[in-house]
Each structure stands twice: as structure tokens, then as C-alpha cells.
């Protein structure tokens, strides 16, 4: 697969992973911040495999960040049952996961 399609795949998975992570943080009833952080971790693990397929330069990394931000916003908007605090922490959580994958 080429770089562009890997970027699409990577950002698709990461947007979903971050939606899980942020959802567990903002929904007060979730044991879940703990238990369902596992769901997010599962998806981040899949994203890592995709991230390892390429050598990313700073232009690619920038593209990943921009694409991820757009997709994550859509993911969070679609899940109206997640508390609106989700938008306050999305940038911070996005940066954390990109650092984790050495993409920032």
C-alpha cells in the first residue's frame, strides 16, 4: 500500500481509538475510564501496525495530524451521547497518541 492510503487507514483507526478514549474519560458512569480504556488500547495497537509500514517525514506527520483532527471531530460529533466536554480535551488526547506513535 502507498503512503496516502496508509495515512487514510491510520487516521481512520486513530480517530476511532481516540473517540473511545475520550468517551471513557468524559462519561461519568464508566468504570470504564479504566475498563474501556482497553477498547481504545486495542485500536491504538492496530494503528501502530499501520504506522510501522512507512518512514514518515515531517510533511507526512503534518498531513496525518490534520487529517486525524478532521476525522476525530466528525467521530465525536456523530456520537451525541458522549458528554460535550469531549471537544475540550480532543487536541490534548490527539497530541498524546501521536507522540505515543512517534508521529509528533
Amino acid at each position, binding site marked *: 500500500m502507498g503512503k496516502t492510503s496508509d495515512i487514510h487507514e491510520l487516521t481512520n483507526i486513530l480517530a476511532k481509538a481516540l473517540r*473511545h478514549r475520550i*468517551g471513557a474519560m468524559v462519561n461519568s458512569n464508566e*468504570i470504564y475510564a479504566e475498563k*474501556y480504556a482497553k*477498547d481504545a488500547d*486495542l485500536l491504538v495497537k*492496530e494503528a501502530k501496525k499501520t504506522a510501522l509500514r512507512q518512514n514518515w517525514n515531517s510533511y507526512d506527520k503534518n498531513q496525518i495530524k490534520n487529517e486525524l483532527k478532521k476525522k476525530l471531530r466528525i467521530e465525536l460529533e456523530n456520537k451525541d451521547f458522549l458528554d460535550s466536554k469531549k471537544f475540550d480535551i480532543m487536541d490534548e488526547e490527539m497530541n498524546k497518541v501521536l507522540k505515543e506513535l512517534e508521529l509528533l
Partner: protein
Amino acid sequence: MQFTHRVSKGSAFNQIYVPRGMEVYFEVGDLVEVRLLEKKIELNYSKNLKKIGEFKEKLIKEIFSFLSRFEEIKQVFAVGSFLTSKADYRDIDLILITDKPSDKIYEKLTEKFGMKFHVISITEEKLLILKKICPLTRSMLYYYISNKTIPGCGKREIDVNHLRFLLMLPEDSLEINLSGRAYYDCLRRLIAIENFLSKKEEDPKKIDSEIEKLISRSLFLALKDSARIEGVALDKIRKIIKEKLDKLGKEIVDGKN
């Protein structure tokens, strides 16, 4: 001079007797000190759980006794496959009722017993809510051993947002390739939610049997073993997940109206 004795039940007060032969050393009017050496550990079984083997019981007693040193822990539950499978368990699942969750307890448990634990810390208040609204919590507490008694899970209450939260992973599993174990968790989750909505018991053993019936024994074992699933097998699992999601989505919306 000292002796060790168990506290016994008296008619008005609980008591400790001075043993025979010690009365010359411990006379009426002497001043003594009483210290707690070992807390008595009770094992309270959930009504659905049959008695487990001696080795496992002894281990749980030791774990409960160790955890009784942490004042912040109000109650402990052992749950999961350690109780229900003969040997097919990956770790020991514990739920700790506490107002002060701490990673130190997990570290100390691992250090003391040299075993793999999965520890969930939760407040009593949250557990009470989850017992009503969460199919997974109800399923988890279907079989348990605890150091204290608790009432059953009680009446179900439908919290649409919570159920939609639980459905997020099965939804994503239709688009993202996950490990076999994650697909197994998705199926388990969907059947537990189905049972919850139709007011059936969320028995994890029955849920496993249902998965096995749906996908065949060999595929069921492969998923539990976290094998990578591809091709026809993956299509089959995704088709089942999709059908269940469609059905549940409709039921949840109907329940809301």
C-alpha cells in the same frame, strides 16, 4: 507471657477466654492488651456459583487476607474465568470497592503472589448504578466470591447512552481488523446486551455457549485464543455482529420512546 486465641461469640458481648493453665499468669484485675493478628476471612459465593476447588479457595482466601491490610478497600470480589473454568483462565479478575483507587495495590498483589491480576477499582456508589444499568457488570457479577455479602443485581434500568457507549467497539469492529479475542469480546458484549434488554439472565457461561452455537466450536476456540481472523471466518463474524447491531439499535431506540 502471652497466648493466642480466637474471639468467640458471647450472649451479650463477644469474648476471649484465658486458656486453662494460664489463669495463674492472667489474674482478675490484671491489665492486658488485645491486638488483631489475623482478620477472619469469609468467602461469600454468589447464588449461581458452585463450590470451587480447595486450591482455588485457599488462594482466594490468601488474596482477600492480603487485601484486608488496605484500610481503603471496603469490599473485594473475585470474578471471571478463574472461578468458572477448570484451567482455562488467563488471570485473576478482582473488583475492589474503594473511594481511593490506587495502582499500588495492583503492583503489591503482583509482587506478593507472582501472578497476573486484572484489577478494577470502583466506588460503592458507582457499582450500585452499574448493577442496574450495565449488562457487562451484571454478567461479571453473575459468578463471584466476595469477602462480604451483597444483595443481587436487582431490577434493570435502561440507560440508552450507556448502552450506545458499549456498542461502539462492535460497531468499529465492522471496519477495523481486530484480534480474535477482541471479536470474541464484541460478541459477548452484544449477547449480554440482548439478554439485558429481553430481561434474561446475563450468565457468561450461557453467553459462551451461544457464541459457540453461532460460529462453530473451532472458530470459537480460535477467537478465545486470539488467533488472527481473516477471509470467510471474518466475514461470518462480521455478518453476525452487523445483524445483532441492527437488531439492538432498533430495540434501544424503541425502548427510548
